[in-house]
């Protein structure tokens, strides 16, 4: 099951690759979201335990033996938070891109080099 971890890291690398090579700012943000998905997958895979069920104590999971039946809920809680925060940040970044586009009519990150050195 290392596969999922590998998938996560590959998505992370693809996302970073996109951030490094794409000129279009929206594409860069897409790269960032891909990398975030990668991290989230890695995080989930850490809580995963083979042949266990979701941490919801319904009829399928007897209360008494729940500890031995469910996967680790903590990473799930963390990922949930991380997803929401990530989306919030990305929405803000996109608004900035809209604003920048209004100023200069360009989506290329190379066109925004007003400040240097």
């Amino acid at each position, binding site marked *: *099951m290392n*596969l*999922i971890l*590998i*998938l996560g890291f*590959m*998505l992370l690398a*693809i*996302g970073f*690759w*996109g951030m490094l090579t*794409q*000129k*279009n700012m*929206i*594409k860069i*943000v*897409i*790269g960032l*979201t*891909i990398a975030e*998905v990668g991290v*989230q*997958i890695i995080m*989930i*895979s850490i*809580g*995963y335990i083979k042949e*266990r*069920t*979701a*941490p*919801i104590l319904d009829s399928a999971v007897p209360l008494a033996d729940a500890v031995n039946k*469910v*996967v680790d809920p903590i990473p*799930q809680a963390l*990922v*949930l938070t991380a*997803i*929401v925060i*990530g*989306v919030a940040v*990305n*929405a803000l970044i*996109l*608004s900035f*891109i*809209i604003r920048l*586009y209004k100023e200069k009519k*360009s*989506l*290329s990150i*190379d066109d925004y080099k007003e400040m240097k050195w």
Partner: protein
Amino acid sequence: MTDVFIIVLGLVMIVFAILALYLKDLVASVIAAGVLSLFASILYLIMQAPDVAMTEAAIGAGLLTMIFLLAIKKTKQIEDPND
């Protein structure tokens, strides 16, 4: 069985990730990223994380894609070749 499924799913996800980066039409690439998120939420379901799966589907795949699309609508859709 699940291993095979995960491998296929993973390969598809990687393909969509690359598509999202390299499609010229921004709308298409945003959709590709959204599909990637959807697949991720399926993956979460397999990994026994229904809460995360729902969040990813509703917020990551749904809302964020809409926000992307709004952003594209307010800027421009096709990437300049010299960009």
